[in-house]
């Protein structure tokens, strides 16, 4: 069991015989394809891979992956993943969740899996809506979202998934979107990070929240509104004509124009995935005045929870033989030699 020798697979090897039941045009299809394309590239082994999800359209995901799969209960996937990984740290465990599943009912578990830094890939499909329950607004819906439960527009402030993750102590935070050709690269980076890797994937719910991300995902908007981050590269967008810089007076990010490719002169920041302070600014960067930061925002590995647990278990069992008879006989004991009555 747990034969880790990588075997060559093709995307087809990762498809199940189950009929995929998302609405036609749903962004989930593209994400499924991206993952099935990624698995062979990372040398994954189906028998050693587990997909675990909560409840929601997104959480149907495991049924379509020819791996071990566990479709659990609403919001609790992080807890199942923790038990699985502690029981068998050799498994490659992927967690699929939605904005409602992962940040509403399951927000608490999400916080704890991130702070514990359990080695897993967390894919949060953010469609800013509750898809499966027919379109109510979600914790990531923008203010004013009209939905069956907010017919006059929602009034609460949305959560920012990547800011939440970083605030919870995540050591890897990335963003991508369903139809992006770069999504497999983001997934690969997440997989090669040892620890909890959090990826927010913007996903178009064509039925209940169509095109909410079109402002940056639309072909016409991509150049001007997507900032793809690359380790060691300047934060440039709009074909290098604009960039992200730090305003030294306010200590806040600002968009600057880059003349003739001279980004140094414009003060554009070079992306360092280990810079947590900048990561905090990137995840908070308001879309509109700023582009959408995509790719690996932060990646700074740290010892993982399961390895610490295993190490402690091993250290404390070393040199001790588990003797059940001795265990039950522990403490202060006394011997009754014969029935006292027989005296």
């Amino acid at each position, binding site marked *: 069991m747990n034969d880790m020798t990588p075997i060559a697979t093709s995307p087809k090897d990762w498809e199940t015989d189950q009929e995929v039941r998302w609405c036609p045009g749903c962004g989930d299809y593209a994400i499924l394809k991206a993952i099935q394309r990624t698995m062979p590239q990372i040398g994954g082994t189906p028998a050693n891979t587990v997909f675990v999800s909560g409840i929601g359209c997104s959480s149907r995901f495991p049924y379509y992956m020819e791996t071990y799969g566990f479709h659990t209960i609403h919001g609790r996937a992080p807890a199942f993943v923790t038990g699985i990984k*502690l*029981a068998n740290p050799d498994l490659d465990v992927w967690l699929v969740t939605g904005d409602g599943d992962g940040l509403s009912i399951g927000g608490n578990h999400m916080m704890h899996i991130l702070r514990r830094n359990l080695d897993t890939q967390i894919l949060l499909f953010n469609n800013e809506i509750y898809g499966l329950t027919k379109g109510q607004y979600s914790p990531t819906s923008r203010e004013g979202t009209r939905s069956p439960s907010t017919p006059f527009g929602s009034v609460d402030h949305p959560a920012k998934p990547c800011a939440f993750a970083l605030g919870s102590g995540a050591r890897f935070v990335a963003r991508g979107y369903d139809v992006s050709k770069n999504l497999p690269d983001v997934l690969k980076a997440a997989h090669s990070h040892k620890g909890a890797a959090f990826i927010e994937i913007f996903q178009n719910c064509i039925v209940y929240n169509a095109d909410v991300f079109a402002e940056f995902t639309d072909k016409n908007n991509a150049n001007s509104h997507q900032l793809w981050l690359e380790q060691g590269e300047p934060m440039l967008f709009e074909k290098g004509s604009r960039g992200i810089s730090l305003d030294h007076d306010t200590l806040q990010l600002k968009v600057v124009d880059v003349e003739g490719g001279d980004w140094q002169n414009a003060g554009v920041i070079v992306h360092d995935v280990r810079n947590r302070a900048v990561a905090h600014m990137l995840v908070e960067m308001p879309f509109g005045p700023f582009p959408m930061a995509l790719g690996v925002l932060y990646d700074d590995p740290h010892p993982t929870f399961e390895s610490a647990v295993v190490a402690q278990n091993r250290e404390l069992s070393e040199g001790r033989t588990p003797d059940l008879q001795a265990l039950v006989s522990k403490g202060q004991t006394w011997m009754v030699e014969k*029935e*006292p009555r027989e005296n």
Partner: protein
Amino acid sequence: MATASHEVTPQEAAAHPPAEAVVVRFAGDSGDGMQLTGGQFTLSTALAGNDLATFPDFPAEIRAPQGTLFGVSAFQINFGSTAIETAGDAPDVLVAMNPAALKTNVSALKPGGLIIADSGEFGDRNLAKAKYEANPLDDGSLAKWQLMKLDISALTLEAVKPFGLGNKEALRCKNMWTLGLALWMFDRDRQPIVDWLKAKFAKLPDIAEANIAALNAGHAYGETAELAGPMQKVSIAAAPTEPGLYRTVTGAESISLGLVAGAQLAGLKLFFGGYPITPASAILHHLARLKEFGVTTFQAEDEIAAICASIGASYAGQLGITSSSGPGIALKTEAMGLAIMTELPLVIVNSQRGGPSTGLPTKTEQSDLYQAVYGRNGDAPLPVIAARSPADAFDCAIEAVRIATTYMTPVMLLTDGYIANAAEPWKVPDMAGYAPFPVRFMTDAPGEGETFMPYARDEKLARPWAIPGTPGLMHRIGGIEKAQGTGNIDYAPENHARMTEIRRDKVLGVDVPDQDIEVGEAGGRLAIVGWGSTYGPILQAVRRARARGIDVSHIHIRHIWPLPKNLGELLRSYDRIIVPEMNTGQLKTLLRDQYLVDCRPLNKVSGQPFMIAEIEDAIANGVGDGDVPPSATQLPEPKAMNP
């Protein structure tokens, strides 16, 4: 109660109360160390060969304001030279470390019983806090008892003077002084306590020595005071017990040990997910120290995460176990449904406490039977086992693991606050006598053109356990209804009906031993039917009644679900059935529902265990000709429940 079976002789049973048994209650402020005193007194009593049962009763507050009525912590022990089944109804001796302890406990004391009071604590302030208008030690209000006033505080300070402790620290030794006196009274060896103090305060030798000096001083005080006053040395002979090695055990300990033993017998590593809650936390604490037995403990962020992580561990091939109490069990309910649906082994330990909601966190009750048997959405059956005593909990835990792994099902193990905290002598089991029940994971990959059937079934209706990492057996499970065999999602009406039946039949088919009779025989005038920790008082009450010639038998049910196959017939063989429970009648309802038998409830929901006398009264009424009249503790019962 020693588990070693000892047949009580008629003379023993006739004794009322049993000959040579003494009940002592230590009561003091929660800061006075009464639980420690009681625990150490228990140990020395066990070492002296007495049978015993204890009842620790402490406040919910960690540090309740000093001297207040709600800050009183008490520890009762019943020990004797005969089989002891309960912590005793009324104490013979009450040690009261302050006015509040006296006030809250004295009414329970037997008429003529002995009060040992620390007069040094009966100043105006403490009297006022206990709402005494006059000092009860002086105003004659305790006349129906024997009173021993000792300035324990001053005597302790005197004894520990050479160690130069501060006043506060010195007074902390009061409990050891009191223990020394109690050891003298009952002729107990001091050495084990001295050893224990040295080990406990190994890093603080001064404190150890001061405590030992206080212990010795209390003992010496007894010796010199013997000539005068009501205090007398009592010698209690060893109780008849089966020869063998003994130790004391609390329910929390024996459950932890039983779970570890069960996992070893199944050949599995144990994963325990828990979240702190009284009185369940002790199991987490015990297991956290047993890593060399392949135990991983995980303190989760809440009870939901605790059970979900445990299910995840079971899914990945370990034995998942979770444990909680009242509100925490409620939180786990949805996940239990998933374990039922995905048919994964899991043990859920419920240390019941008074409810609903936060209820009585530190008091005992057995009011989660409905929740255990019925309390989930959908038709969601799972086996339920109830432990009757600290020692019995060991075997119950092993049984829970056996059923969970043999039938691929979650199992609920019910215990309660009383069992969890109480200590009793336990004959150390011979582990070689337990048959292993090794688990076999599915490893055979399907042949060419075949597909793996994760929902195929064996003769027990159990499905295969195929764990991630196994080549060729990749499959998907979840909470959605699935097709028989393939386990693929299947909403078809007839499939759901069939799967519901299978889940029901699998649990009903669990091999549960036939119900035996504790005392008495099949058929007759009256049966007292109990479950869980009411075992002791019922057994003792039935023995006493039978000694008086009353036709009454005691049946105690361990397997709450499924019920033993012969139970219906057995119950129908009695003219009357009374079901004493620390709830409003939950087993009663279950038995009525399953067998249409006219069970009568006897209920107590005060957070305290039954007294033997309460059950004796019910027996006396139950064999009368009229209806069972509602007793003081019995709730009005709707009429015409049964055809």
